[in-house]
C-alpha cells in the first residue's frame, strides 16, 4: 500500500492534492452531504418552508406504491439488460478467439457501440422501432405483431432493454475476449487429447476459468443498468408510457426536477447511494480475488 | 576524494519499546582513496550501513563524516557521493548518454562539460558505441557499466557500491571485478563496496570490514582477516571451504577432542575449554608412524587442482584439502595430520573471541 522509499516533504503533498481535493469537496462531498441533509427535510419547491422530518421521507418513499414498482421494474430491467448483453458477447468472444485472421477488424468493429452515448443509442433504436416510421416496427407489423411502445408499456420496456443491451455487448465482448486469451492453450489441447469434444471442453474448462470475468461483468453490468441507462430512458420513453419504463434512477430525476419533490427525491438518492456502495464493495471484494487468479 | 568516518553509528527501526536495532554502534575510519569492502551474510546490516553513508537511510545515533564534514542531516545529493545499485537503477526512458548526464544536468553543468565527461567515462568503460541505446536494449553487464559510468562522471569524493555484481553471471562477475579494480587504480577514489561474497571481498579490498548481526567483527587487510581472524565468525566466514573449528580441552601440550588427545606443536595459550581453528589447506599429511592426529576419512570431493576430504578428527567433523594429483585416500581409511603452530588459531568457546598464544 505504501512504497518503501518516499520523499520526506510534508507540505508539498498537500499542495499536490489540493486541486483534486478542492474539486472533490465542492462538487462531490458538499452535494452529497446536501442530498443526505435534504433527505430528512420536507420543503416546498421554493425552499421557503423547511421542516426537519427525520426519516419520514424514507417512510413515504417505501410506502409509495409507485416507488416499489419502480424498484422491481429496475431489477427486471437490469437483469434483462445484463443477460442480453452478456450471452451474445460471450458467444462472439469465443468466435473471435478462434479466428486467426481478421480478428483485429472484428474486434474493432464490435467495440464501436462503446463509443456511442446511451442517449444516442436510444435515439437510434427509437428510430428503428418508431410505430409509424420505424423500419423494424414495420417488419414487426408485417409479421402480425402489434407493436406500439408509445402505448404499450412492455413494448416500451423491450425497446429500452434492447437499446441498452446493444451498447453494453461491446464492453462485455472486450473483457470476455481478454479472459479467453488468458486461458493457456495447453489446457485445451490436453483436454482434446483426453477426448473431450468442443462443447464439453467449453463447459468444463473454459467456462469455469472465465467465471471471475463473468462475475465481474455481472456486477459492472448491473451498475451500468442501474445508472448509465438513464440516457436511454430519458431520450426514448421519458419513463413512460405511464411509468412503464421508469427505473429508480429516472424516478429520482423526475421527482426532483419535474415534480419538485425535493425531500422524496433526495431520500431516493440516498437509497440508491446505499445500493451502489453495496455493489461497489461487492465488486472490489471480488476484483481483489480476480487479481489473484491472474 | 575524502576520508569517511563512522563513529558509534546506530540504526534502529521504530521507536520506544518496540524499537528494532539493526546496527549496534559501529566505528570505522576509511582513509582517503582507500577501497574498503563491507562483507557479511544477508541481514547483517551492511547495506543499511552503506545507505546511511549515502543518506538514503536516516542515522538514529552516532555520526558519519565524509571529508571531515559531518553529514548526518545532509541530503544525498549534497554529500558529493555517487552510488552503483545492485539492480542498476537506470532511467528506462533515457538513453545511455542521458542516464549518465542526468545528475550533471541537474547540477547545471555547462552542456560542453557534460558531453566531455560522459564521453570520457564511456571510453573508459567501453560504452562509446552504446550511447544512443536505451537500457532495455543492453545486456546485464552493459547496464552495470552504464551504472558505473553514471557514478564516474559525477567525479564525487566517494563511490558507494551496493552489491553491484550480484545480478551478473559468474563469468561476468569475475570480469567486472577486474574492471572495478582497474578503475580504482586509475581514479583512486575512496570506495565503499558492499557484498555478501567473500571472494569478491578478498579480491577487491584493500581493507575489509566483516559484519555480522549489526556489529563489526573485524576490520583489516585481506591478509589480516584471513591469517589472524579475531572471532570464530570471521574465521569461518572468510576462506572457502571454511576453517575447521574443533571444540575441546587444552592441557599442557595436548588438546583433547572427544576421546582423542591431539599432540600440539606448542602449548595452547591457556588451559581449559578452547576452540581450535585450522584451515583445510593448512593441515598436512604425514606418513611417519606415531606422529600426527588420526583423521578418519568419510567422503571425497574432486575439484580438479585440489581434492576435499571430509572426515572426523576425534569424533568432530573435519575437512582437509589436498593436492588433486595425489592418490586419493580411501573412504574409511585413517590418515595422519599435522599442522605448524603458526597455522593454529585459538578461540574462546563462550565468546568466540581469538585467544592469543
Amino acid at each position, binding site marked *: 500500500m505504501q512504497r518503501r522509499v518516499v520523499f520526506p516533504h510534508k507540505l508539498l503533498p498537500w499542495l499536490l492534492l489540493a486541486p483534486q481535493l478542492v474539486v472533490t469537496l465542492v462538487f462531490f462531498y458538499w452535494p452529497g*452531504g446536501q442530498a443526505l441533509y435534504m433527505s430528512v427535510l420536507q420543503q416546498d419547491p421554493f425552499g421557503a418552508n423547511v421542516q426537519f422530518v427525520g426519516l419520514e421521507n424514507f417512510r413515504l418513499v417505501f410506502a409509495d406504491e409507485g416507488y416499489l414498482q419502480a424498484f422491481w421494474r429496475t431489477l427486471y430491467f437490469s437483469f434483462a439488460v445484463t443477460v442480453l448483453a452478456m450471452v451474445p458477447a460471450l458467444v462472439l468472444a469465443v468466435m473471435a478467439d478462434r479466428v*486467426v485472421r481478421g480478428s483485429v477488424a472484428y474486434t474493432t468493429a464490435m*467495440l464501436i457501440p462503446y463509443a456511442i452515448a446511451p442517449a444516442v443509442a436510444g435515439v437510434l433504436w427509437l428510430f428503428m422501432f418508431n410505430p*409509424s*416510421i420505424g423500419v423494424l416496427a*414495420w417488419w414487426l407489423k408485417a409479421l402480425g405483431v402489434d407493436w406500439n411502445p408509445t402505448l404499450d408499456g412492455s413494448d416500451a420496456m423491450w425497446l429500452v432493454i434492447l437499446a441498452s443491451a446493444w451498447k453494453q455487448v461491446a464492453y462485455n465482448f472486450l473483457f470476455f475476449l481478454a479472459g479467453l486469451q488468458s486461458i493457456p492453450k495447453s489446457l485445451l489441447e490436453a483436454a482434446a487429447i483426453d477426448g473431450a469434444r468442443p462443447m464439453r471442453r467449453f463447459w468444463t474448462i473454459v467456462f469455469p476459468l472465465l467465471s471471475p470475468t463473468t462475475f465481474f461483468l455481472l456486477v459492472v453490468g448491473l451498475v451500468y443498468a442501474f445508472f448509465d441507462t438513464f*440516457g436511454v430512458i430519458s431520450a426514448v420513453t421519458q419513463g413512460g408510457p405511464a411509468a412503464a419504463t421508469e427505473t429508480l434512477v429516472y424516478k429520482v430525476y423526475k421527482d426532483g426536477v419535474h415534480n419538485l419533490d425535493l425531500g422524496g427525491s433526495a431520500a431516493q438518492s440516498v437509497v440508491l447511494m446505499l445500493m451502489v456502495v453495496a455493489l461497489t464493495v461487492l465488486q472490489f471484494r471480488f*476484483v481483489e480475488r480476480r487479481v489473484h487468479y491472474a | 576524494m575524502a576520508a569517511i568516518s563512522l563513529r558509534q553509528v546506530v540504526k534502529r527501526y521504530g521507536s520506544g519499546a518496540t524499537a528494532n536495532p539493526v546496527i549496534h554502534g559501529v566505528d570505522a575510519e576509511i582513509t582517503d582513496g582507500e577501497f574498503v569492502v563491507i562483507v557479511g551474510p544477508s541481514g547483517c546490516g551492511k547495506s543499511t550501513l552503506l545507505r546511511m553513508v549515502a543518506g538514503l537511510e536516516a542515522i538514529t545515533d552516532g555520526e558519519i563524516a565524509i571529508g571531515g564534514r559531518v553529514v548526518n542531516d545532509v541530503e*544525498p545529493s549534497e554529500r558529493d557521493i555517487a552510488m552503483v545499485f545492485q539492480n542498476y537503477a537506470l532511467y528506462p526512458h533515457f538513453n545511455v548518454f542521458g542516464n549518465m548526464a542526468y545528475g550533471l544536468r541537474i547540477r547545471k553543468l555547462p552542456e560542453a562539460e557534460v558531453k566531455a565527461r560522459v564521453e570520457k567515462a564511456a571510453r573508459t568503460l567501453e560504452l562509446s558505441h552504446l550511447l544512443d541505446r536505451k537500457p532495455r536494449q543492453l545486456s546485464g553487464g552493459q547496464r552495470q557499466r552504464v551504472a558505473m559510468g553514471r557514478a564516474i562522471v559525477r567525479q564525487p569524493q566517494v563511490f558507494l557500491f551496493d552489491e553491484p555484481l550480484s545480478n551478473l553471471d559468474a563469468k561476468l562477475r569475475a570480469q567486472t571485478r577486474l574492471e572495478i579494480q582497474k578503475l580504482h587504480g586509475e581514479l583512486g577514489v575512496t570506495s565503499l563496496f558492499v557484498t555478501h561474497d567473500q571472494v569478491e571481498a578478498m579480491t577487491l579490498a584493500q581493507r575489509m570490514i566483516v559484519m555480522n548481526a549489526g556489529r563489526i567483527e573485524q576490520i583489516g587487510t585481506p591478509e589480516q582477516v584471513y591469517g589472524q581472524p579475531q572471532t570464530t565468525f570471521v574465521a569461518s566466514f572468510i576462506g572457502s571451504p571454511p576453517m575447521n573449528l574443533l571444540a575441546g580441552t587444552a592441557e599442557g601440550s595436548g588438546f583433547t577432542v572427544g576421546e582423542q588427545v591431539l599432540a600440539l606443536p606448542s602449548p595452547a595459550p591457556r588451559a581449559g575449554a578452547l576452540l581450535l581453528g585450522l584451515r583445510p589447506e593448512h593441515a598436512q599429511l604425514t606418513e611417519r608412524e606415531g606422529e600426527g592426529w588420526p583423521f578418519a576419512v568419510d567422503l571425497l570431493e574432486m575439484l580438479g587442482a585440489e581434492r576435499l576430504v571430509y572426515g572426523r578428527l576425534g569424533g568432530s567433523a573435519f575437512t582437509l584439502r589436498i593436492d588433486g594429483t595425489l592418490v586419493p585416500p580411501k573412504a574409511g581409511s585413517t590418515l595422519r595430520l599435522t599442522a605448524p603452530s603458526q597455522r593454529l588459531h585459538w578461540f574462546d568457546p563462550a565468546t568466540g573471541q581469538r585467544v592469543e598464544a
Partner: protein
Amino acid sequence: MITAGTSSASPDPLRPGLAWLAHAVLWLGIAVTAFPLYIAFVASTLTAPDVAQAPMPILPGAHGVDTYRTILLQGLQGTYLSPPVWQMMWNSLLMALIITAGKIALSLLSAYAIVFFQFPGRMVAFWLIFLTLMLPVEVRILPTYEVVSDLGLINTMTGLTLPLIASATGTLLFRQFFLTIPDELVEAARIDGAGPLRFFKDVVLPLSATNIAALSVILFIYGWNQYLWPLLITTDNRLDTIVVGITKMIGTGDATTDWPQVMGTTLLAVLPPALVVVLMRRWFVKGLVDSEK
C-alpha cells in the same frame, strides 16, 4: 492482456473446418452492431417525406450532401431551434477535452502525492478521493445542480466540466502504476539531486505516457457522451452539446420530426468517439482493462 492482433487463437485441433462458422457468427454480430448505424445513415441521405412513409427504403438516397450541409451550417429549425451542428460538435469537443485534461492532470498530481510521500492525513486523503468512485453523478444530481447554481456557473463551460472532473477514475489507475516504479530509481534520482517535482517531471511523467494515453481515450469518450449533466446545466441552446442536441431534436418523436436531419446529426455525434476507438484501439483496450482492476 488483449492482443487482438496477434491472437494465436485456439484453432480447434480437432475441427479446423469450423472456422467458417466462427466467421459467420462474427459477421452476424457485426451486422447487428452496425444495423442501427446503417439505418441512420440511409435515413440521413433520404428526404423527410421518404423517411416518414413506412417502410423506409433500405438503400441510401441522394440527399445526403444537402442534409449534412444544412445541419452543419444551420442546425435544425423545428420545435427545437438548434444551433448549427458544427457549433454543437465544438461544444462537445471542448467539454470532452477539458474533462480529459482536467481529470488526468488532477489524478496525476494526487496519485503522486499519495504514493511518493508519507505524511499525516495521507490515508484520509486517499479515502476521500477513493470514495468518489462510489457515486455516479445521477445520484447526486440535484444538490450538485444547486451548488453549481450557487456558484453562478450555470450556462458556463466551467460549470459543465468541473463537477465531472471530481471523480477519482484516474487517481486509482495512476496510483497502481506508480507503485510499480522501482525504489532504486527514486534513490538514484535522489542521489543525482532530483527533488520530488523534478523527479515527477523527468522520470514519472515520461514513464506514465502509455497510461496517460490509454486513460485519455476512455475519458474523451466519457466526456463527449455526457448527457444528464449538460442537459440540466445549460438553458442557453447555444451551449448544447451534440448529444443533448439530438435528444431535444426528437421532440415528440413522430413524423413531424425532420428525421434525415436528426439521423445525420446522430451519425456526426457518433463519428468522433468512434474514430478515437478505431484509431487508438490499443490504448483504448488498455485503458478499459486497466481502469477496472
